[in-house]
């Protein structure tokens, strides 16, 4: 029985990720349009809500081109790996508290492993392989340059991201995402905000910047920098293989929004949750709240994309190595001093 619930949960989360990725493409275009005083896609269905379906249909029907000089096997492995690593990241995110239906207790988390954050980190660092392999297999200099940029950017920002997480771990004392979410119960406890963003503001800022870089989103979208690299690592891709790369980017955005919401913004916790006495109701509202937080982060990703111009490559590296990493280390030291001397 347990297994069936888990499988159902996996399928549901997978479908939700795909749905959100689909509608993120629509939301991206709408947000871009609104920020630029336009109306955006509005022809396919009312307000254009069928636009993702039309785009998906187009992607599937397009001619599939594999360049003659490309390494066929790796050329196909690239996007597959990209979308696979994007999808498996959601396994450790706690979507909500336990749901009780009759005698069954359903845990709204696929796997509550005690190294949840490390798992996310591992998956995120695997994500760069999809881009790297795809760029290399294309046998195209622009693709390769895009892939190299993606790889070096991800490696540089992973360090800062990891260091910013260490400070958070010193506060929470656990790597399990479920426990971290539980610690942020409610909104206000013991005379201070419960959410980690208020305990680790600098850590959150660093993590946010690194998340932008890890998901290859503007202003760090150098791997697919159109002005210099044609399309970056997916220059040679067409049809649904290109679709997978774009999809992977949006799923990554969704997952990193979920991780940020869980780590820093209380996950499924919401203010005054103790005033509701039905446990199931709290769980359901919690899931909705978590998704509201995730959508807020996705909106923020898009808002930033349509505001800030792209970094130059050396500026990107300067920011990563000379600013974010020292700041993250300083944050660790400050947190250490705080946990040792003030919190006792």
């Amino acid at each position, binding site marked *: 029985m347990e297994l069936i619930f888990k499988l159902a949960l996996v399928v549901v989360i997978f479908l939700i990720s795909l749905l959100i990725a689909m509608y993120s493409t629509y939301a991206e275009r709408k*947000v871009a*349009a*609104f*920020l*630029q*005083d*336009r*109306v955006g896609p*509005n022809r396919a269905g009312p307000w254009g809500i069928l636009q993702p379906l039309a785009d998906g249909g187009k992607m599937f029907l397009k001619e599939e081109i594999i360049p003659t000089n490309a390494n066929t096997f790796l050329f196909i492995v690239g996007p597959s790996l990209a979308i696979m690593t994007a999808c498996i990241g959601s396994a450790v995110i706690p979507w909500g508290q336990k749901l009780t239906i009759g005698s069954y207790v359903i845990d709204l988390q696929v796997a509550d492993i005690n190294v949840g954050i490390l798992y996310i980190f591992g998956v995120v660092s695997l994500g760069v392989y999809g881009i790297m392999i795809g760029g290399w297999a294309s046998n195209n200099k622009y693709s390769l340059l895009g892939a190299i940029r993606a790889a070096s950017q991800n490696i540089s920002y992973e360090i800062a991201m990891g260091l910013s997480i260490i400070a958070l771990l010193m506060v929470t004392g656990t790597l399990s995402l479920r426990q971290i979410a539980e610690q942020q119960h409610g909104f206000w406890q013991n005379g201070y905000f419960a959410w980690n963003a208020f305990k680790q503001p600098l850590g959150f800022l660093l993590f946010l910047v690194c998340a932008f870089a890890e998901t290859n989103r503007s202003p760090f979208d150098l791997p697919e920098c159109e002005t210099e690299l044609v399309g970056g690592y997916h220059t040679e891709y067409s049809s649904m293989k290109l679709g997978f790369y774009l999809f992977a980017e949006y799923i990554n955005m969704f997952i990193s929004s979920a991780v940020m919401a869980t780590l820093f913004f209380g996950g499924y916790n919401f203010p005054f949750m103790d005033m509701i006495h039905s446990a199931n109701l709290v769980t359901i509202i919690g899931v909705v709240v978590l998704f509201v937080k995730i959508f807020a982060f996705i909106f923020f990703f898009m*808002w*930033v994309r*349509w*505001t*800030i111009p792209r970094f130059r490559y050396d500026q990107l590296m300067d920011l990563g190595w000379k600013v974010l990493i020292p700041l993250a280390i300083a944050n660790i030291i400050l947190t250490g001093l705080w946990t040792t001397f003030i919190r006792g």
Partner: protein
Amino acid sequence: MEPLSNKRKVIEQKPLSFLERAYLPAIFQGLGITIKHFFKKPVTISYPEEKREFSENFRGMHSLKRDENGKERCTACGLCALSCPAEAITMTAAERQPGEEHLYREEKYAAVYEINMLRCIFCGLCEEACPKEAIYLDGDIVPADYLRKDFIYGKDKLVEAPLNQ
């Protein structure tokens, strides 16, 4: 060197201050500006449903005019075709037969009158050249179509609707 004008301005490149180097204030400023636009009304005009008013002297699709009695004014003199810089106009003249006086004003008329809308540059020189005030570019935008041949507009599309007495 003597400056050519007194408009020259020496730009001083100051090193960035700490706040400027921190990027964040500028980024938040930018986010504030974009979010203000988020709530503004879009300036889009959804074209086929909604049309912007044309100006007085807008030159659109041609129409071949009729006179006050509903007779075609065109006399197939060919001046419009001659004046056309894009060579978009062709016509074949014919003689008016007895009994056709209510259709054509002059003894000669255009049996075939074709304008290739793909060639036409809507300069309005045909309008200026016409001695009979028979052609005016007072119509709408020429609609899109699928085939090149469908852009050659004959008299069926160009001549004004007959007067209804």
